[in-house]
């Protein structure tokens, strides 16, 4: 700890990460472990939960995997309300089914709303209640949003609807949880190269679309986002709540 430069240190803290097996969730789990935090990893793929264990254990922190679908409210509730330690939630599990507005299927719309909105809300509520019950001195919840929580994109109507919703939820939660010293923020990345977006980037036209819209001529990496998440999770950000860190190389500044 310096005089004015605060450490980003999560020693003794416990973080629950949803969608922890792949992409941003996996990156966040590794970065938080690197900063000393214990990891509770939620995902649906047992093989990947096992391989994540090997990566997390390198940092000599605790690792608790839980194979569960975030839509399974009852199992989630049972699991979270039984946790003995919890300080941080990285509310990451999410998905996207790009379709133009006129052709959005009812089933895709419902899937996105269930995962990106309802499950995000439910898990945040369950974790916030548990952090309060455990009488932790402070807490930090990070909702994974997107630039499409700030601006629109082609074939992103439902995704934008859900992510704008997450932005609203973040601010509302921040106000309700401030008195418990639980901070709530979001991160809004540009399109990050992850297993889910790999198929989008394979399309040359899409590649050009991302490049043309990103003033800083680079693709956002998982590490870029995981670093901001870790910063928000730590006491280095102890006065930051109800806001968003936009990691978009300037996309939304235009």
């Amino acid at each position, binding site marked *: 700890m*310096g*005089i*004015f*430069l*605060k450490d*980003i240190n999560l020693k003794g803290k416990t973080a629950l990460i949803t969608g922890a097996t792949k992409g941003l969730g996996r*990156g966040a789990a*590794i*970065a938080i472990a*690197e*900063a000393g935090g214990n990891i509770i990893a939620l995902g649906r793929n047992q093989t990947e939960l096992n391989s994540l264990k090997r990566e997390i254990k390198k940092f000599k922190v605790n690792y608790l995997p839980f194979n569960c679908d975030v839509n399974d409210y009852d199992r989630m509730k049972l699991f979270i309300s039984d946790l003995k330690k919890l300080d941080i939630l990285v509310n990451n599990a999410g998905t996207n089914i790009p379709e133009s507005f006129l052709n959005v299927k009812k089933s895709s719309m419902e899937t996105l709303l269930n995962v990106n909105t309802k499950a995000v809300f439910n898990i945040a509520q369950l974790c916030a209640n548990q952090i309060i019950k455990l009488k932790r001195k402070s807490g930090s919840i990070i909702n994974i949003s997107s630039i499409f929580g700030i601006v629109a994109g082609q074939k992103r109507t439902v995704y934008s609807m859900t992510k704008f919703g997450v932005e609203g939820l*973040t*601010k509302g939660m*921040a*106000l309700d949880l*401030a*008195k418990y*010293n639980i*901070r709530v923020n979001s991160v809004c990345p*540009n399109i990050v190269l992850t297993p889910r977006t790999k198929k989008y980037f394979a399309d040359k036209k899409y590649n050009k679309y991302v490049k043309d819209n990103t*003033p*800083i*001529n*680079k693709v*956002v*990496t*998982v*590490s*870029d986002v*995981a*670093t*901001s998440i*870790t*910063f928000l999770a730590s006491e*280095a*950000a*102890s*006065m*930051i*709540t*109800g*806001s968003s*860190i*936009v*990691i*978009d*190389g*300037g996309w*939304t*500044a*235009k």
Partner: protein
Amino acid sequence: MFKKINLKNRTALVTGAGKGLGKACAIALAEAGAKVIILSRTKSDLIKVSKIIKKTKGSSQLFVCDVTNLEDFKKVLKKISRLDILINNAGNNRPQHFTKVTQENMEYLTNLNMKAAFNVAQLCSQKMVKEKNRRKIGGSIIHMSSQLGRVGCEGRNVYNMNKFGVEGLARGMACELAPYNIRVNTVCPTFVETPMVKKFFKNKKFKNKMLKNIPLGRVAKESDVATAVAFLAADSSEMITGTSLLVDGGWTAQ
């Protein structure tokens, strides 16, 4: 995965570095390894800051300079060999009800908070883009804005005008400097324990009213803001540009 805040081999210029937030930023950047160039109108303040930096084994160079004096600032820049980071911090406030704002105060605040901020940023940018390896190592400009660059507040109309302007300037600069890999962001603090705010808080009624507006129920510490500035200055945030980091305890989320 996690990108540490590391400013080794970087040179940072901090305006208004004699007191308050500028002083905290200068020391935090030095603690992160940067060589710091500190500017203020008051030599005795600068000497105190450089002594603290020396104690933390950092290195600094001081210049007595009024940033509203363009020619003086140009002379300072000529004496500097390299520049990677600018903390455009010098600023002030003279609260008055809109109907009572004197011409003198409006001119003083606008000249300092906007004109000088623009000029300093432009001159530093001109120097920064010339560096041969700029695209490779990047650069970072951080404007000291305020929560009042995002929302209005009683008696703050000129300051609001100035800081909303700085928010616009940062976004415009971000678009134009992205090709050089120079990032431009702002930090928007709530009330911070600085000499400037201490003066305002002598009015207890005002202090209590303002504290009620901060959901976290406390004012920010100088280290909260300085850490956010160091985060934006470092490669930890290498894909963050054209945006603002709100260090406001939830003030603007309401």
